[in-house]
């Protein structure tokens, strides 16, 4: 044998792990005795095995580990999808956009936007039910106000979840 085959590689690893039955173990041991290539590979695998066994030691945390965990139990961890940093950046963006919206709104930029929208069921040929014609007036000012109100609500949630709540939780746990 000039090179260790994949099958032998697996057998040798199982041999090192003591994972073979007695018959298999004996057979493998006999083959190893006959082949220098297998003997060398076994030496390498055993060195790796011994190293890994030797390094498999448990690490001990600090003495006050349990105490710290117990202190932290009262604080419910926040699992909001945004980090405080990203939350703050998004909040700044929303506030800037809202401020711009309020300025434009107070300057009367949306006063002229008033579009009547008529929904005529006759236009829909497939609809056979008699529906009354629907007239809706789209008021730009009110649309903008609704939009700004929703943005303010989002900003408030962001402020609470990503900044205020983590801050007060951290303070409470100190």
């Amino acid at each position, binding site marked *: 044998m000039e090179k260790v085959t994949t099958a032998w*590689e*697996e057998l040798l*690893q199982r041999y090192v792990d003591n994972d073979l039955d007695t018959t298999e173990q004996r057979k493998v041991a006999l083959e190893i005795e006959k082949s220098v290539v297998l003997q*060398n*590979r076994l030496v*390498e*695998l055993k*060195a*790796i*095995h011994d*190293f*890994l*066994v*030797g*390094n*498999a*030691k*448990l*690490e*001990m*945390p*600090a003495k006050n*580990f*349990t105490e*710290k*965990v*117990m202190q*932290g*139990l009262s*604080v*419910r*961890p926040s699992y909001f999808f945004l980090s405080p940093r990203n939350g703050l950046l998004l909040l700044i963006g929303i506030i800037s956009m809202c401020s711009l919206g309020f300025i434009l709104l107070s300057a009367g930029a949306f006063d002229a936007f008033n579009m009547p929208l008529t929904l005529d069921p006759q236009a829909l040929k497939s609809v056979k039910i008699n529906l009354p014609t629907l007239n809706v007036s789209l008021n730009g000012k009110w649309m903008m106000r609704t939009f700004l109100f929703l943005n303010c609500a989002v900003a408030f949630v962001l402020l609470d979840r990503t900044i205020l709540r983590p801050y007060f939780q951290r303070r409470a746990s100190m």
Partner: protein
Amino acid sequence: MLRPSDVITRQEEFELIDQILAGDTNRYARLVDHYKSFAFTIAMKVLENRAEAEEVAQDSFIKAYHYLKTFNREAKFSTWLYRIVFNTAISQKRKNKHAFVSIENKIIEYSERADIDLEKEDKQVFIARAMEQLNEADRLSIQLYYLKEFSLEEVADMMGQNLNTIKVRVHRARQRLADELNKLLKHEALTL
């Protein structure tokens, strides 16, 4: 054989969990004491930083406490907890941007400096260095497997991977480490 500090039976563990869920929070300290070294070791293996590992292990225990109601008693509490620790540590590692870089095929070069060092350092140090060059998932698989407390099934469960994948990872990692050692031995023989 490596074992947590004191023995705790599965029955005792379930009783403790019942008491904790009934509101006796202080009983949780017993579980923390029992599993802290393993949890910390797993976090250390992933993060390779003591302070971060400690923080991650603590966060994992806190998470486990808050989600204790969802713990399925068909599984072992330890496996469930270690999976939380493993996932929290991996998330932390990703945050640190020390991402899973596949360096599986990276060759450990024998520089002149390395020649000098190798005379001083023994094979153990070389193997430790070769370990660092392993694909991260392979390295973690082999390290957790060699902690002995874990069977291959538990390692697979903890890492959220298929049993056969873990078997392949452990096999491949050992093979690669042995190959590296072989290179070193040949190199040493040539320089003698």
